[in-house]
C-alpha cells in the first residue's frame, strides 16, 4: 500500500477547477497483516486543505458592483457590460483576472496559518528504524533524565543527605521512577501491539504510571530479583576477581538482563501478570528464534556499559555533586535511550514474528 501521489497540489490550494484530482479514500478489509492496514492514513494529505473564501469575490475588486452571480458565464457577461467602451475586454479581463487571482492567492496563502501536517509514521520495516524512537522522544528523555539524576543524588546515602527529610529523599526519586516505568511500559506496549512509533507516556495519568510500575516491580520480583541478589552476593564474597569470577558474574548478568526483558515482553504482550513465568518466557524465546540471542547480546552489552558509567558517576558524586549531577543526567539519558530502543525493537519483533505469524 502506497501513499497517494503528491500531484494534487491544486487540490491543496483549493482549486475547484481541478475536478477529479482528489483521490478517493477507500477502506479496505483488514488483511491478516494488520500492519499494512496501518498505512492507510496516507490519505491524510487531503485533510490539511484550508477552506478558502469564494475567490471570485476576492480577486475582482474592480468589479465590486457586480453581484454575486451563480455561474462563471453570468459573471463574465456582467463584467463585459460594466466595462468602459472600446476596451479590449476579453484579453484585459482575462489577464487581470488571472494576475489578481494569483497575487491574492499567494497573499492569502502567506497570511493564513496552515496547520502543521501531522507526521504520518509507519511501522518499522527494518530493525535499525527502531533507533528513531529515542530521538523522537528526546525532550521527554532529557526531562526524565534530569529528574532521575536529581532523585539519584537524593537517595544516595551521602553523609549530608541525612539532613534532608526522608519523604523528600525517597518520594521524589520514586515519582520519577514511576514515570520512567510508565513511559517504558507505554513504549513496550505500543511496540507489541504493532502501533507505529510514537512518543507515548502516562503524563498526568499518574495512576496508569503507578500501575505500570507495579507491573515492572512484579516482573522484577518474578525472576530477575534472585539473579540480581545472587550476582551482588557473589561479587561481595568472591574475593579478588579472576577470570572465573568475571565469567560467572557475566553469566548471571546476562541471565538477569535477558530474563527481565523477556518477562516484560511476555506481560506486555498478553497484558496479564500471570504470564510472568518461565514457560511463557521460554515460548517467547522460541518464537523469536535467533532474534532472542540478538536481543540478549544487545541488551546485555548496553546494560553493562551503562552500569559501568553509573558506577563512575556515583563515585564522582562523593567528590563533586554538581559534576556528578551532570554525569548522572547523561547516564540516565543514555540508559533511557538504550532502553527505549531495545524495548521498541523487542516489541516490534514480537509483534511481527509472533503476533502476525499465521
Amino acid at each position, binding site marked *: 500500500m502506497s501513499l497517494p501521489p503528491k500531484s494534487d497540489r491544486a487540490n491543496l490550494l483549493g482549486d475547484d477547477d481541478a475536478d477529479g484530482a482528489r483521490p478517493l479514500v477507500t477502506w479496505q478489509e483488514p488483511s491478516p497483516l494488520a500492519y499494512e492496514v496501518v498505512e492507510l492514513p496516507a490519505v491524510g494529505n487531503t485533510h490539511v486543505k484550508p477552506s478558502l473564501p469564494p475567490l471570485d469575490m476576492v480577486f475582482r475588486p474592480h468589479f465590486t458592483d457586480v453581484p454575486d452571480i451563480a455561474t462563471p458565464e453570468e459573471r463574465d457577461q456582467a463584467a463585459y457590460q460594466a466595462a468602459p467602451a472600446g476596451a479590449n475586454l476579453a484579453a484585459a479581463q482575462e489577464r487581470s483576472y488571472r494576475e489578481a487571482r494569483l497575487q491574492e492567492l499567494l497573499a492569502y496563502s502567506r497570511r493564513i496559518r496552515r496547520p502543521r501536517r501531522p507526521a504520518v509514521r509507519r511501522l518499522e520495516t527494518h530493525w535499525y528504524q527502531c533507533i528513531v524512537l529515542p530521538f523522537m522522544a528526546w525532550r521527554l528523555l532529557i526531562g526524565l533524565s534530569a529528574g532521575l539524576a536529581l532523585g539519584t543524588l537524593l537517595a*544516595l*546515602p*551521602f*553523609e*549530608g543527605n541525612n539532613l534532608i527529610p526522608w519523604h523528600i529523599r525517597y518520594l521524589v526519586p520514586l515519582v520519577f521512577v514511576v514515570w520512567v516505568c510508565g513511559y517504558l511500559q507505554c513504549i513496550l506496549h505500543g511496540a507489541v501491539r504493532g502501533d507505529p512509533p510514537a512518543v507515548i507516556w502516562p503524563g498526568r495519568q499518574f495512576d496508569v504510571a503507578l500501575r505500570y510500575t507495579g507491573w515492572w516491580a512484579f516482573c522484577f520480583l518474578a525472576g530477575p530479583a534472585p539473579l540480581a541478589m545472587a550476582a*551482588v552476593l557473589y*561479587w*561481595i*564474597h*568472591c*574475593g*579478588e*576477581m*579472576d*577470570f*572465573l*569470577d*568475571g*565469567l*560467572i*558474574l*557475566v*553469566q548471571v548478568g*546476562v*541471565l538477569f538482563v535477558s530474563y527481565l526483558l523477556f518477562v516484560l515482553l511476555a506481560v506486555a504482550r498478553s497484558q496479564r501478570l500471570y504470564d510472568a513465568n518461565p514457560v511463557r518466557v521460554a515460548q517467547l524465546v*522460541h518464537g523469536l528464534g*535467533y532474534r532472542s*540471542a540478538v536481543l*540478549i*547480546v544487545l541488551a*546485555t*552489552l548496553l546494560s*553493562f556499559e551503562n552500569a559501568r558509567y553509573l*558506577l563512575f558517576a*556515583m*563515585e564522582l*558524586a*562523593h*567528590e563533586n555533586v554538581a559534576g556528578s549531577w551532570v554525569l548522572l543526567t547523561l547516564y540516565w539519558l543514555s540508559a533511557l535511550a538504550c532502553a527505549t530502543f531495545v524495548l521498541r525493537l523487542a516489541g516490534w519483533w514480537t509483534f511481527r514474528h509472533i503476533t502476525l505469524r499465521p
Partner: protein
Amino acid sequence: MWNREAGLLFISLFLAEGLLMKMPHPVWYAVLGVAVLAPVGVRVLTWPAQRHVAVEPSMAEAGKVLFTHVWTPHDPLCNGGDGLGPVYNADSCVACHRQGGVGGSGGRDNNVTLFVRNVQGAPAMEGVVHRYALCDCQESLTNVDSSLPAITKPSLVSKGFVCGTPQIVPRAAPDGSGVVDVLTLPRGIQLSQRRTPALFGAKWLDEIPDNVLIALERKQRLRWAMAPSTAEDVPVGRARRLAQGRIGRFGWKAQSATLAEFVQAACANELGLGNPGQVQPQPLGKPTYQTVALDLTARQCDEITAFVASLPRPQERMPEEPFPATQAAAGKRLFHEIGCADCHMPDVGYVAGLYSDLLLHRMGDKLEGVGSYNQREQIPDPSPGEGPLADEWRTPPLWGVADSGPYLHDGRAATLEEAIQLHAGQAASASARFKRLTSVDQTHVVAFLKSLRAPQ
C-alpha cells in the same frame, strides 16, 4: 575490566557459534546449561575455606621461652648470629608486650619512632630510629637529618602537622607529664611513632580468609553508594593489597598478611634478631655494619609464632553489678547507634567480638603518620591500591581495649574519651555524634568499652 570483556566476548562467540550451527533446541539448552554451570561448579570446588591451624603445645612452650627471653649480644640462643642488636628497641618481646599479661600492648615509653626522609640531594629512605644500640651504632635524629638534635630516645607528641610541610613537633617529657619543648623538622623530614599493639587473639585474625576482608570492603562501598576509599566523609575502608595478592591485617598500617610475617618483622626490627623472613636493620650511623649470620632459625620463628597464636582471645566481660552492667549495655547500644560499629565491627567472618574491620581508613590530617619498618631506598607512591596514605590506619581491634591504654597509634590519647574525640576523617561523623551525646551517654559508651578486657 579485561575479565568482564573477555567474558562478554566468550558469551557472544558461544551464541554466534550456536546460531551458525543451528543446533536443535534440546542440544542447545543442554550445551548452554553446561556452559553456565561449569564455571560455578569449578568455583564451588575451589572456594577458599577458613584456615584452622592447631597450635602444637610443645611449639608454644618453646616459643614462650623465646618470647620472654632477655636477649643479649651474641646470645647463646642465636645460633652463631650477633644476637641482640646492633640496634634495637627492647631486649625482649615481653618488655613491650606486657599490659594485661604476656602478649599485651605497650605503653607510650615503648613507642617506636619511624622516619621518612625525602629531601633533595639525599637518597629518599624510611626506617626506624632505634632507641638502643651496641657500641658505636647508636642512632639519633641527627642520623635522619644533620640539622636535627642528637636525640636518641625521642618522645614525640605529634599533633596537627601536615605531611610535606615543616613540622613543629611538641616533645613530651619522658614521664609523659607534659610538653618540655618543641622540635622543628625541616621540609622533607617526617617523624611518627607507633605504639606496641596487643597480640591477644592474633591467631583468630590470622585465620580470617582474605575474601572475608575483601567482602567487608565491598559491603562498605555498596552501603555508601560505591564511594571510593579515598573519600573523607564516609567510612569506606579498603583492604591493603600486599605482594602476591595477599591482604594485610597485622600492624598499624596492615603491613603484614600473616602472623608469621608480623612476628618475624618484629623480631628483626625491635630486637635486631635477623631471621629468614626479615633481615636485621642496618644502623643508620653505620651502614657498613656486616651481619654475621641469622640470629633466629625458621623453627625458632615458628615457635614464637606458635606461642603468639596460643594467646587467648580477649573477652567482653560485662560487670556483675546490676547498675554498671546496665550502663555497659546501654553503651553497647549507643556504640552501634552513633556509628562506631561501621568500622569497629563486632564480628568479622567467624571471629566474634573483634570490633574491627581490619581495613585501612582515612583518619584525617591530624592523625597522619608515615614510615615503615622496612628500610627501603625508594618510597612507594602513597596512592590507593599501593602503600597506605599517611592518614590511613587499619582499624585496631577493640577487644581488650580496656587493658591497652594509652590509645591511638602513638598513644597520644590518654583516655578512651579523648581517643574517640580525636577521631577525624572518615570517623568524623561518628566522633561528632559521640560529642553530641550527653555526658551520661558518653559515660555509658566508655563503660561498654571498658568491658572489653584482656584475657584472664
